């Protein structure tokens, strides 16, 4: 019995010591538990959104892009009282995500966002059971012909194209390296677009692509970056959350290796070498969806964020622009895509 108490205390102390090191006022994300009610009298019923995501909200990649967008929409709509956000992150188990989606729907949320292509089956099954709820599913264009499912996608190949184009102008060694997780979905679109843009800019450039087979193996992503660098690459890019390791390696390299990011603005990670990032501004499609929902249309449409509607924005690292016309060149490529001068052909 004594030993049990000792063990109990040990585990307890460990948890408490470690948790107690947390600063008193942690920056809690702007969420509300559904049981709580807004204390100030809200102007109208708040618009309630629930989102289910496959990775962490601070992954500096896919999930964060959606979460940041929701926060921006919340800010525009007047804060927590007008716009309620609730989330379940790290829902990589498809089955658990399905339970979450169903649960949020049954709690009466106006919009339930299933932010992950693997959730499609679940949304397809659940949506018919909740005709009053609007569902949004990304990244895809398939709405399953359901009246209450919206679909959204990112034309990440467009920003990829711009990044690739610019990368090709920067490389002195004529070798560029790409680090990806698995060759599917959003990652594949980005990488294919990047390669196309690089080769359009300079057909003599070599673009080496490495899919490391995992979304979470940071060490392997870092070694992939080192391998690229050893193979002569002096510009790198990559997609998904494990690239933070790769960015680190790019920064430590003895000769400057530049980085192009996607999904979120990755400048903060390595201000010395991150050139630009294709940032997803999902709020562009979110505001449209919300508008439609408030007017009574709960689904049946698909949305794309791209360069044209401002859903994808190339955000440059203002601290350093590599040569005077650099940003202008980028803008030129963007307008080239928009007016059709450049066409992105994907394999």
């Amino acid at each position, binding site marked *: 019995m004594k*030993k049990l108490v*000792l*063990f109990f205390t*040990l*585990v307890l102390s*460990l*948890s408490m010591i*470690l*948790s107690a*090191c*947390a*600063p008193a006022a*942690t*920056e809690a994300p702007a969420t509300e538990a559904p049981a709580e009610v807004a204390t100030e009298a809200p102007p109208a019923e708040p618009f309630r959104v629930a989102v289910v995501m496959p990775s*962490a909200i*601070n*992954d*500096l990649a896919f999930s964060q892009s959606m979460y940041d967008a929701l926060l921006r929409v919340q800010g525009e709509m007047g804060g927590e009282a007008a716009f309620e956000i609730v989330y379940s992150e*790290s829902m990589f188990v498809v089955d658990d995500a399905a339970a979450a989606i169903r649960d949020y729907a049954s709690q009466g949320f106006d919009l339930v966002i299933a932010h992950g292509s693997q959730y499609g089956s679940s949304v397809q099954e659940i949506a018919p059971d909740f005709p009053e709820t609007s569902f949004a599913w990304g990244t895809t264009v398939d709405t399953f012909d359901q009246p209450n499912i919206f679909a959204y996608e990112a034309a990440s190949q467009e920003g990829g194209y711009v990044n690739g184009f610019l990368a090709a102008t920067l490389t002195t060694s004529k070798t560029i*390296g790409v680090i990806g997780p*698995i*060759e599917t979905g959003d990652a594949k679109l980005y990488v294919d677009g990047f390669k196309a843009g690089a080769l359009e800019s300079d057909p003599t450039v070599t673009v*080496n*692509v*490495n*899919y*490391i*087979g*995992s979304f*979470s*193996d*940071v*060490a*392997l992503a*870092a*070694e*992939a970056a*080192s*391998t*690229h660098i*050893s*193979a002569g690459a002096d510009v790198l890019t990559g997609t998904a*959350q*494990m690239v*933070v*390791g790769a960015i*680190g390696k790019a*920064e*430590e390299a003895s000769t400057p290796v530049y980085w192009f990011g996607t999904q979120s603005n990755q400048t*903060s*990670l*390595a201000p010395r070498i991150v050139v630009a990032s294709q940032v997803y501004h999902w709020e562009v499609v979110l505001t449209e969806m919300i508008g439609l929902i408030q007017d009574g249309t709960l689904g049946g449409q698909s949305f794309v964020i791209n360069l044209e509607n401002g859903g994808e924005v190339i955000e440059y690292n203002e601290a350093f622009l590599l040569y005077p016309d650099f940003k202008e060149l980028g803008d030129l490529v963007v307008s080239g895509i928009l007016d059709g001068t450049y066409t992105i052909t994907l394999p």
Partner: protein
Amino acid sequence: MISELFTTTVLIGVLASGIRLATPYLYAAIGETFGQRSGVLNLGVEGQMLLGAFAAFYVTLTTGSLWLGVLAALIVGALMGLAMAFVTVNLHAQQGISGIGFYLFGLGLSDLLFQKMLGTVETVKGFTKIHIPVLSDIPGIGEIFFSQTVLVYLAFALVPVSWFVLNKTTLGLKIRAVGENPDAADSLGVSVARVRYFTVILGGTLSGIAGASLSIALLNVFQQNMTSGLGFIAVALVYFGAWRPWGVMAGALLFSMVNSLQLWIQVLGIPIPSDIAVMMPYILTILVLVVTVSRVRGPSALTKPFEREA
């Protein structure tokens, strides 16, 4: 295209990269070796690594001192090891399962602390490469062996030290005795409990340092679940190495170098599907073990709790 693999650049790259990648595996596996030699299987290595990685990263970030970070990892790992030792030695828990429990706990707790104490992905100034004077200037070999971070050097230095401790010291003798025949050891006056506490806490400490080697040496960042299965591979490598430090090192190097090789294969554009390339280190590890059929039996008391006959 395959011929592109056989260049000095690739060779040097694979070796240097392999040594770097092997480091966390080496710390964790050596630690596990001690534990297993004394009869304790710890499958919770990955949880210990993640907590150690976070502790090292956070302390380094807030204090600016890398060695304080290492110390933090050490302490956190030791505490986890202590908990595991208690559960194993005093409570005679089924070792495979308790290990998995600690793994899940470490995984969840490290993620939780990361979210609450850091909030975003950040970087630190980690350990830098130390170029050993003169030796690091030797072309090729210099880059591979003599231009690594201090934690890499320490990991490899650990191998002969472990070998010495296990085979040439009284402590090592006690450890091995407890692992082979705890009843006999007990009757000779060796405290089985004390030895196992030592080895398991040591194992936890080394796993913590393994985590630190990831977050403040090899990489400069912490992210949720950044070990991604590393701890389990490390445990597997103990079997590969037949519970001998040199064997474990060989396993860690084999695995990591093949991993490094498959990275090169992809980078050079050799047309092997990426999924197949990623499989290579795992398949090869099994194959090598099959081919080098080992007659070595493991510690006889491995996974069996010790209870003194009344």
